[in-house]
């Protein structure tokens, strides 16, 4: 560890200078890959993730692997015993998670570029709390080969950067079809597009109402400042997006964690943190034969419902806009129950359900999030660049 890493950004670091930090649930040969878990402290992957390989080919050097919530489970960024991630803007506060270290490394200027994983907000949440740009691509835009499974149908590799241009640079480099991730698609190249002019924006009243008054005020101020016309519509069912998302996360996570039994991978499972254990147990329960229909299948059907709803919405609108997080970064230790932590994700979960790209821009201590339909990444990135200029 170097002295510069004051806020617990890194789990492993090289001596050679580099410009790229990689979340420690993404495999890079030559580095341990711990997923910020004691269980995997000694896991040395024999391969490098496709997305990282592509950036290396572009000339970027990986400087280190960053801390995160253990196995990417959390929204505070502090659920790990391998590092002590803190918010660079206020050390009493959490950096946001799960890609906490990647956000800290960029905010503190230790690297120019960082990548993380975003399953339900894990790059956009720390980007907001650390006041940088966080980008979640469309599902299928960037190969996940080498990203440890968390919830396979929502996992994406996203970026944490100081500005939208840097995000465009990384996303352009990582995009494209990969035979080793069959969910990736052809012809998803990022191209320069016209941007924000003429784009139709919508916001959901129920998400705005769930935010702190101060956040809502800043949000209105930002849309006025950028001269955005936003239709505010009712979407009461959006509250159901949280249980829908978490049911699927638990079930898939329990399956993904099945291999860490100490036989080939991992050590004694007693080493796992409480949140990880909770998710494995809940996921095992809801995917059992006698419970599956009541929980998992219902959640899958609800996801389908959301996807159809959003498809209809995106026929009328280009982007959904909302505050990324409902409140400022919580104090370390302030959040003690999982339900409160899960409910912080109301603004970031719906893009995962409908597989679209989503970007969070920093604005006066909060985050402005724009979300588009699946594979509208180019339009979203260049529109976000315009919005960044207007804020």
């Amino acid at each position: 560890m170097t002295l510069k890493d004051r806020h617990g950004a890194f789990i492993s670091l090289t001596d050679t200078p580099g410009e790229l930090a990689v979340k420690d649930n993404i495999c890079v040969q030559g580095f341990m890959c711990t997923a910020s878990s004691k269980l995997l402290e000694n896991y040395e992957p024999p391969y490098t993730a496709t997305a990282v390989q592509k950036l290396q080919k572009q000339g970027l050097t990986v400087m280190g692997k960053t801390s995160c919530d253990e196995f990417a489970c959390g929204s505070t960024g502090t659920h790990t015993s391998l590092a002590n991630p803190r918010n660079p803007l206020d050390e009493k506060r959490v950096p946001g998670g799960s890609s906490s270290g990647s956000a800290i490394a960029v905010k503190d200027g230790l690297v120019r570029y960082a990548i993380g994983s975003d399953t339900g907000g894990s790059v956009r949440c720390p980007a907001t709390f650390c006041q940088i740009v966080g980008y979640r691509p469309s599902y299928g835009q960037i190969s996940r080969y080498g990203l440890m499974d968390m919830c396979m149908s929502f996992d994406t590799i996203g970026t944490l950067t100081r500005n939208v241009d840097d995000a465009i640079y990384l996303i352009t480099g990582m995009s494209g079809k990969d035979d080793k991730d069959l969910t990736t698609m052809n012809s998803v190249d990022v191209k320069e597009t016209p941007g924000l002019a003429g784009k139709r924006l919508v916001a959901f009243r129920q998400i705005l109402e769930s935010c702190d008054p101060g956040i809502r005020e800043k949000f209105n101020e930002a849309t006025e400042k950028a001269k955005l016309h936003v239709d505010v519509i009712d979407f009461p069912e959006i509250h159901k997006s949280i249980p829908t998302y978490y049911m699927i996360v638990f079930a898939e996570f329990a399956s993904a964690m099945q291999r860490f039994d100490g036989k080939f991978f991992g050590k004694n499972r007693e080493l796992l943190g409480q949140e990880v254990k909770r998710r494995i147990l809940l996921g095992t329960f809801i995917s059992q034969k006698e419970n599956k229909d009541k929980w998992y299948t219902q959640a899958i059907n609800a996801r389908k419902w959301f996807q159809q709803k959003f498809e209809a919405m995106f026929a009328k609108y280009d982007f959904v806009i909302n505050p990324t997080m409902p409140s400022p970064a919580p104090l370390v230790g302030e959040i003690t129950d999982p339900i409160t932590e899960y409910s912080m994700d109301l603004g970031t979960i719906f893009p995962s359900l409908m597989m679209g790209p989503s970007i969070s821009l920093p604005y006066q201590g909060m985050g402005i999030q724009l979300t588009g339909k699946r594979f509208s990444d180019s339009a979203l990135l260049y529109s976000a660049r315009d919005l960044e200029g207007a804020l």
Partner: protein
Amino acid sequence: MKVGFELHVTPLTESKMYCDCPTKNAQPNLQVCPICTGQPGSKPMAPNETALRAGIKLAKALNCTLNESVSVMRKHYFYPDLPNNYQLTSEPFGENGSFNNVGITEIHFEEDPGQYDPKSGLVDLNRSGSPLLEVVTEPDIDSIEKARDFLEEFSALLGFLGISQKIKADTNVSINGGARVEVKNIGSISGALNAIQYEVNRQAKEGAVLETRHYDKDTMTTKPARLKETVADYRYMREPNLPRPRASLQAKNGSTTYSTT
């Protein structure tokens, strides 16, 4: 007696089911990669086309009804030779067939686990991820002669279709309406016949309980399985790393394609 089979056919392929590793013999743990050793972060590649073609051909020859589209499922269980602790196994792509007057329940494709040696405790993952076609029959066989006929005809069919010479015949045996005993670890047709005969005699003498037993070719007997091999619930789940809405196996005009839409 009532006898049915679970026939595991290893189709002749150059490479494994979900990765590019070769299937030919080698020193232990040399024909491996991140995918077939279950490294965290690895995902399955598209199912081996040759294996899928062989499966469709076999399903047709067994007079099965073909399903146009099947999902690949994760079947969860813990066993020393299974790095992920789940096995990828497809839904049946052929059902309700018949061959040699024996009902064919279904045929699906799956991946072989590695090889675990209980004596040394060592695991060889060269075989891990190799393609398998599993044919499940109804318990329609009521004599050793019929069992022999069926297995010989089935094996001749595989030769004729050019699919494989390598089959393993797990068998289930019950007598007088008693409990069904599964016998695994059978490597040859004569082994299967010996195992059936031994089980018929043993069950007549000892009675039968629902269990899995292993065949020992040296003593030509069966023994209760050392490790628990059946679990109450495999928590089947569609493999999300294979494309949505489903990994489909399409059989149109005799050609097989792996479709991602």
